[in-house]
């Protein structure tokens, strides 16, 4: 048995002596083997509306059985789930929920999907994978809400079981990822491209942090990358930052900043762009990219008006990208 193991799940490639654990806090070298400490041990379990992920173009108004374990392979200064993401599993109260029980409860609670979320499901990869395979057998959708900091091989093995993902595209510079998240941008960009190529429905979320990634130049560059690389149909959500964790010195994102980001995205050709964490903002809604008519009116996570019929704009009949019902 090797005394030192190297984890190959993410770019950090942690090398661990006996007894050491990885940067994510949940993978550990025990007896010369890399082991996961969080298989079947979520510390957060909840039923959420799918719009909360946020996923606005997937099974609207359905509920998602959402799970997370402790740990994360990023360390974002703004993390809003830091109480579990920046903790070892010995520091959280964990449930005993093997994959079959996750699926059973998802069905029991009337959910159409299971979401691997809150912290980052990449670090509970094995638990996510086994649960996703079972969920697929029971015709439940699998949703991954992730920062996308994963190596290509494990991602390629996972993609066939993931129906939709919301990926944090936190910023568009390596400097931002290094200074804010202790990570790298390029692996995330590669992961997003791979997911799209593998047929995963992808929506992106950028948390707009005042003074860090909110310049017009950065927002425009991010939008251009999305359009040039992925096309205009990948939804992009701009989310409002709230002072949290290691950035309590900053104010919440000003609403005009979010509105400007939303407008820049539309100028750059993104068909579906949204503003999150600002209830009542026009950016909560979906508009037809052709006739500009209001398609979906939302308040919070509730849909008040829906003019998408059979996946098309009710008015001009253009196809609106998304998975509007199972079987599409």
């Amino acid at each position: 048995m090797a005394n030192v193991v190297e984890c190959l799940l993410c770019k950090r490639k942690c090398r661990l002596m006996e007894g050491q654990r990885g940067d994510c806090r949940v993978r550990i070298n025990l007896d010369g083997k890399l082991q996961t400490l969080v298989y079947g041990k979520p510390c957060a379990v909840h039923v959420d509306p799918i719009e909360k992920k946020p996923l606005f173009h997937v099974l609207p108004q359905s509920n998602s059985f959402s799970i997370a374990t402790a740990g994360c392979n990023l360390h974002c200064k703004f993390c809003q789930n830091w109480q579990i993401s920046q903790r070892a599993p010995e520091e959280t109260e964990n449930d005993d929920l093997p994959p079959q029980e996750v699926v059973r409860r998802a069905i029991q609670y009337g959910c159409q999907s299971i979401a691997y979320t809150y912290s980052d499901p990449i670090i509970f990869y094995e638990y996510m994978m086994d649960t996703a395979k079972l969920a697929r057998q029971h015709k439940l959708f699998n949703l991954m809400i992730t920062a996308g900091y994963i190596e290509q091989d494990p991602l390629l093995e996972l993609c066939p079981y993931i129906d939709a993902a919301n990926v944090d595209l936190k910023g568009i510079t390596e400097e931002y990822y290094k200074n804010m998240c202790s990570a790298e941008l390029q692996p995330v960009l590669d992961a997003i491209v791979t997911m799209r190529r593998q047929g995963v429905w992808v929506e992106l979320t950028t948390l707009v942090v005042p003074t860090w990634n909110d310049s017009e130049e950065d927002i425009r560059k991010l939008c251009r990358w999305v359009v040039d690389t992925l096309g205009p149909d990948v939804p992009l959500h701009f989310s409002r930052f709230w002072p949290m964790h290691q950035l309590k010195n900053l104010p919440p994102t000003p609403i005009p900043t979010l509105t400007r980001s939303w407008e820049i995205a539309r100028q750059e050709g993104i068909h579906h762009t949204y503003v999150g964490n600002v209830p009542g903002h026009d950016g909560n809604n979906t508009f037809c990219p052709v006739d500009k008519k209001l398609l979906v009116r939302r308040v919070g996570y509730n849909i008040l008006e829906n003019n998408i019929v059979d996946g098309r704009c009710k008015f001009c009949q253009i196809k609106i990208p998304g998975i509007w019902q199972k079987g599409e």
Partner: protein
Amino acid sequence: MMISGVIYENTLSVLMPSEIIIDVAKVRKTIDEANLVPQEARYWQGVP
């Protein structure tokens, strides 16, 4: 359904907060005390 943990996702809605109360242990437990069961991970290699 709620078990332990306070979670504020990055799409917190003031209209529909998600409240999951987390009891963070004041004293860090051992793996056994925390009832964690190590299982072999995927995607790793031994280093000579």
